[in-house]
């Protein structure tokens, strides 16, 4: 029997304060799709970065076709037939598909790049593996799914026989995901081996031949999709039973906390993004704002949180006018904000956990007195928040950038909820998180609700909207086009209104708008 294409033996990798990989062994045969499943921070990416020569392991060995090798660099990995497609694509946007694919390995004739040959090569491999793509298109103009295809072609062009896909579906639409799976299946039928790094259970069930589950840097189990189900996988991954549907009591709507009236907001291009929106959120209620990305949600949230100027209408928080207040006053008035982009707006990644914990409250007691920070109080509160919100970290002195995505989001939640706000605005609070972290975030949001807080949730995930919300507002083209009470509408109905299906006055322009929205992405 031929040796496996790649075999990892007891790979160990230590980062300061974290054992990212603890004696991980894994083998990969020609013609199989192996899903590497685990929570954020379980060590999946670290392991694959070792294989791809981006990191060097502290212990263990890598065998390629039975021979022990020390992979020094990505270039070396490529020479050994290992290709990797990262979560963030490494393409040169202004260049064409062909130029991107041959970059670094250009066919030359007399010292000049032979573009004719290059295009032929690209056509040939794209035909062979059934990855249709226009070799002359500019990468910048391609949708995300196509760009990913270019990345895969790039690896194949360099002779990859093992392909590592790092969270390949995170950026794709459901249609693109189906296409990707078809591509992956055709690749393995040609004798390649594919490693699929993911934390999404449905994907594992539908595409993998074999599933290797990692937790806390160790392999905790291996199975086949036919031998298990999503609940079983979730249990292996998280280490305990996971409740998918959250239980919640009926809403007890108290005082009106947030009142928005005829709000108008401009976007960056000075076009009206929010066109006269009115709604209220009361104490003890979760209101979800559902819509396709780019329909004014971001601008609306920024207006409420004091990050964007309002051009018309009014906003009141607990009866106090906040129409023209800055973020600082909005925070003081009892507002907390879990931003949509936690790396850009949620955290200062270079700050340690203490410094991130006080952001927004850094002028007030107990953190500051007369403009001087009180690190004794800061340390005490930070430690308490880390414990209360289950932020997994070796200490409060490490930088936020070295936490995993789920723990970063828990840190943001810890800060924003720890402030004991009257209104919580949570934008895409579970984006990119694994099931364990999602469950945690959902429970925290519902805990706020039962504590009589008002919650405004913005989400693209219908499942999340359906399970958390008491009322659902559908936003389309900067207007609220429909309101549902929880449980009243099916996913299909929500989707119908989100894409402009409701209301006569909107239906005529909807085609056009959809095209626009796609072009912006």
């Amino acid at each position, binding site marked *: 029997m031929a040796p496996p294409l790649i075999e990892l033996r007891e790979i160990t990798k230590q980062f300061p304060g974290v054992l990212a990989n603890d004696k991980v062994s894994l083998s990969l045969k020609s013609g199989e799709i192996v899903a590497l499943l685990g929570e954020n*921070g379980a060590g999946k990416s670290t392991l694959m970065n070792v294989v791809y020569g981006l990191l060097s392991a502290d212990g263990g060995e890598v065998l390629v076709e039975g021979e022990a090798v020390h992979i020094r660099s990505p270039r070396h990995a490529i020479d050994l037939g290992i290709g990797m497609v990262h979560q963030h694509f490494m393409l040169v946007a202004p260049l064409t598909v062909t130029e991107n694919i041959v970059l670094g390995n250009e066919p030359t004739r007399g010292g000049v790049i032979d573009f004719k040959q290059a295009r032929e090569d690209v056509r040939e491999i794209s035909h062979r593996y059934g990855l249709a793509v226009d070799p002359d298109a500019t990468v910048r103009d391609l949708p995300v799914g196509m760009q990913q295809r270019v990345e895969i072609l790039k690896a194949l062009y360099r002779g990859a026989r093992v392909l590592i896909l790092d969270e390949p579906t995170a950026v794709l639409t459901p249609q693109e995901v189906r296409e990707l799976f078809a591509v992956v299946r055709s690749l393995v039928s040609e004798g390649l081996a594919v490693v699929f790094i993911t934390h999404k259970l449905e994907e594992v069930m539908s595409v993998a031949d074999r599933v290797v589950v990692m937790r806390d840097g160790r392999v905790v189990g291996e199975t086949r999709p036919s031998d298990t189900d999503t609940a079983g996988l979730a249990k292996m991954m998280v280490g305990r039973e996971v409740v998918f549907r959250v239980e919640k009591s009926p809403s007890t709507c108290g005082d009106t906390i947030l009142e928005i009236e005829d709000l108008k907001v401009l976007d960056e291009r000075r076009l009206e993004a929010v066109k006269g929106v009115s709604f209220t959120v009361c104490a003890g209620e979760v209101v979800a704002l559902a819509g396709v990305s780019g329909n004014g949600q971001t601008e609306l949230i920024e207006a409420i949180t004091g990050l964007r100027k309002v051009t018309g209408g009014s906003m009141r928080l607990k009866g106090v006018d906040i129409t023209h207040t800055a973020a600082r006053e909005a925070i003081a008035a009892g507002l907390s904000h879990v931003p949509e982009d936690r790396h850009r707006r949620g955290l200062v990644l270079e700050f340690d956990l203490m410094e991130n914990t006080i952001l927004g409250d850094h002028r007030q007691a107990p953190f500051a007195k007369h403009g001087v920070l009180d690190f*004794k109080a800061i340390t005490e509160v930070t430690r308490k928040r880390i414990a209360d919100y289950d932020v997994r970290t070796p200490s409060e002195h490490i930088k936020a950038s070295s936490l995993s995505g789920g723990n970063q989001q828990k840190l943001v939640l810890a800060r924003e909820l720890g402030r004991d706000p009257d209104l919580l605005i949570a934008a895409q609070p579970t984006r990119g998180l694994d099931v364990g972290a999602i469950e945690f975030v959902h429970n925290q949001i519902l805990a706020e609700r039962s504590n009589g807080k008002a919650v405004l949730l913005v989400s693209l995930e219908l499942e999340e909207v359906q399970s958390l919300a008491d009322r659902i507002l559908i936003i389309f083209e900067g207007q609220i086009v429909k309101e549902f009470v929880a449980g009243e509408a099916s996913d299909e109905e929500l989707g119908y209104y989100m894409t402009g299906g409701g209301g006569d006055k909107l239906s005529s322009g909807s085609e056009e708008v959809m095209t626009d929205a796609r072009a912006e992405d």
Partner: protein
Amino acid sequence: MPELKTEHSTSRLAAVLRELAVPLVSVAIAAIIGSIIMLIAGFDPLAAYAAMFKGAFGGGRQIGETMLRSTPLMFTGLAVAYGFRAGLFNIGAEGQLFMGGLSAAWLGIVLAGMPRPLNIILMLVAGAAIGAAWAFIPALLKAKVGAHEVITTMMFTYIGRYIVSWLVTGPLKAEGQIPQTNRLPVESTLPKMHEMLPFLTPSRVHLGFVVAIILAFFIWWVLKYTSLGYESRAVGYNPWASETGGISVSATTIKALCISGALAGLAGVTEVMGVHMRLFDQFSAGFGFTGIAVALLAKNNPIGVIAAAILFGGLSAGGGTMQLEADVPQKVILIIQALIIFLVAAEQIARWVIGWTDRRGATEHAG
């Protein structure tokens, strides 16, 4: 906060050493490359370095001279470092320094006959204020219309220098042929340090050195332990998250650039009050620009600025002796300074020499 340090003191120490490693190794590599260049040019590097060291630290007078030369670099190094921490590149410290010098040359005459301590305090405060004012307009332009501070502070440097040029040749010119202002009365000057520490006799080092050291510790404290410093660093790292956290990015930008300007202004004041006792066109040997190199070498750490300024001051003080005794041209100093800056900027070289082969950012992707 000593009570918190106990359990982390070892890792903290390791972190400090890690921070120090790159600058130290960079300086060492620069010295080695410098000696290779001297060998090629037919000089004896060991003799050159020995003479340089002797000229910089060989005795009380030499040490005093090194302190003297490092003083303006500490102020400008702190100025540039503070700006960098807030994400601002104050390339115009030289202009703010000139305005500080101007204020001292004028105010020192106005205050003639007043008590010396009062004059010193007033002149320092005024110089810091005008340095801040000189940075305020670029700061405002940056905060309100986004004009890049590299362009505007540089332009303001030209304006400042030409204003000084005009004043010392015209309205403020002293009697005689030379374009310079009147000599400051003794009550408007900084005391020499050898008056208190005879060991430093007869060097010219003045009280400004002590002021600079105290200020470095103060700025370190401000950055780490005050809300103001916290906001400056937050904006420097991530303006969007700062804004979301209720920090006014424009107000913080203005404050930070003005603080930077105030520190640079003090360099001008102390040069006039402590060294020249008057103002003339060439009173600064590009201290504002060398301050950028000092801040880089210090990795924008205020305490590091003290060490980096003393190194640069020592190189400058020792250069003369090196030329006299080892017959090596003083310009070699400039080569070594340039190499240090190059190596600090290209940090990877030093990391490679140390053997930190982990690729950039590797530890930040521990997922």
